[in-house]
């Protein structure tokens, strides 16, 4: 019976494989600092916990000596106990101070950085409930605007300059860095760097309203060549509609409520309220990491955004079925 329980526990542990959003699955130097800190704390404190529990169990199990029934104070015993308790107190203090030192120095290692030459600066503005992303560049024609997805080249340090448009949000990509609060009318920064290609999921880590849980983003780390290719594609204006259905879809977009909030560069849509859709079809997710990006989900999202993310700020736009199909053709073509 006991063995059976152990087996069940062991099986449960195998469920702990780190996914794309795990601080234990460190993908860069900053994440390693945090993961190491967590591991060191866990091991050291785990050992201490076991020692304390072991001693307590030992004390419980010890039989009283025959002569101790009277609890007569013995000077020798008293002095010995005082020494043991004193030594344990000193040891505890030293260990706690040591933990403070490693914790503070880890925090310092994360924040104390000078601006490296090849750093990439990305501005992230959080809104209820999505992320506006802008790649800063001294050359204004090289600035990329996108949403809910950040592409970074492997091996290059990235600085996120974050702020918020409404309430306090928090930028957290556990696989790459620690949390950083995004505060209205203030700029906070966080550094990270990816050491291997991969997808890292991030999540708002400060309760920010109804759809806080559905406010995620993807960080895609790729090699320099793939990143440059992505960057060049993002700089382009939107794909021109090439079929009748796409042309109709564009007219539906420009003639309806969509156009007031969304931008599609290269068209008359310049709304600044909601995510830029110029290259929406190239992204991994819809509605800030809520849905996988495919035609069916897009149709559901456009038809009834309030059942997928109740309370979000996307308007419900009544569309005829053929209008919706054309719109899906058009939006799906915006690679």
């Amino acid at each position: 019976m006991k063995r059976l329980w152990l087996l069940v526990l062991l099986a449960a542990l195998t469920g702990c494989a780190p996914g794309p959003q795990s601080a234990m699955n460190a993908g860069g130097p900053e994440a390693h600092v945090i993961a190491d800190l967590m591991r060191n704390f866990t091991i050291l404190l785990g050992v201490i916990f076991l020692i304390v529990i072991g001693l307590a169990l030992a004390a419980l199990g010890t039989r009283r000596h025959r002569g101790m029934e009277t609890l007569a104070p013995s000077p020798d015993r008293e002095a010995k106990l005082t020494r043991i308790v004193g030594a344990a107190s000193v040891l505890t203090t030293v260990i706690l101070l040591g933990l403070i030192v490693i914790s503070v120095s880890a925090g310092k290692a994360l924040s104390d950085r000078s601006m490296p030459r090849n750093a990439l600066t990305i501005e992230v503005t959080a809104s209820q409930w999505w992320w506006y992303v802008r790649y800063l560049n001294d050359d204004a024609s090289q600035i990329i605007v996108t949403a809910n997805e950040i592409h970074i080249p492997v091996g290059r340090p990235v600085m996120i300059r974050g702020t918020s448009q409404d309430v306090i949000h928090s930028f957290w990509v556990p696989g790459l860095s620690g949390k950083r609060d995004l505060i209205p009318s203030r700029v906070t920064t966080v550094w990270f760097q990816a050491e291997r290609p991969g997808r890292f999921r991030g999540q708002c880590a400060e309760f920010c309203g109804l759809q806080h849980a559905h406010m995620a983003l993807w960080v895609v780390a790729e090699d320099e060549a793939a990143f440059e290719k992505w960057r060049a594609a993002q700089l382009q204006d939107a794909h021109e509609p090439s079929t009748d259905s796409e042309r109709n879809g564009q007219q539906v977009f420009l003639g309806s409520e969509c156009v007031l909030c969304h931008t599609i560069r290269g068209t008359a849509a310049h709304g600044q309220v909601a995510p830029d859709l110029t290259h929406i079809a190239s992204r991994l997710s819809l509605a800030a990491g809520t849905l996988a990006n495919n035609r069916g989900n897009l149709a559901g999202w456009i038809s009834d955004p309030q059942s997928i993310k109740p309370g979000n700020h996307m308007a419900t736009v009544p569309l005829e079925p053929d209008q919706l199909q054309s719109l899906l053709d058009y939006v799906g073509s915006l690679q």
Partner: protein
Amino acid sequence: MRSGIICIGVCVFAALTGCSREKKRLRPQPASVIVFGAAARESQLQPAGQATEPHVINPSEGNAQDISDGERLFAQYNCTGCHANGGGAIGPPLIKKTWIYGGEPENIFDTIVKGRPNGMPSWGEKIPEYQIWKIVAWVRAMNKEEPRAATPERPDGLEQDSGTILGSHEKRVGK
């Protein structure tokens, strides 16, 4: 004494259960409340005599959540670009006593949907109707025409020197 305190406590608790929270409406209201036509009448002359005035209900009237949504939409759709925060800039002020095109909810709705000469764009089909009603509620709230309990405070600096709604309110009370 002690039983008295307990009794009061129970009563207070019972009273609290009466505090119902305003429902947050996530979906647009059905279109049946939209009266668009009779309310847009621009002439009082009608063949075969005067019809009774249509009764228009703004579904967002008195709803705190909708009024606050209206405030957000007012900024997001750049109403502020011309009307500032209601005090007026290159567009006319919205906090006022005299309305060029009428100050009832249906008139404000019409003005937003149809646009007006000399600069007010027509927002019909670009802003969903249920959101227009929220903006209407906010414009009315700026003028203290919405229930006080549902209305956020308006900054004092926004009040005009003349023709504020406070003046007309006093007049109404005076009547």
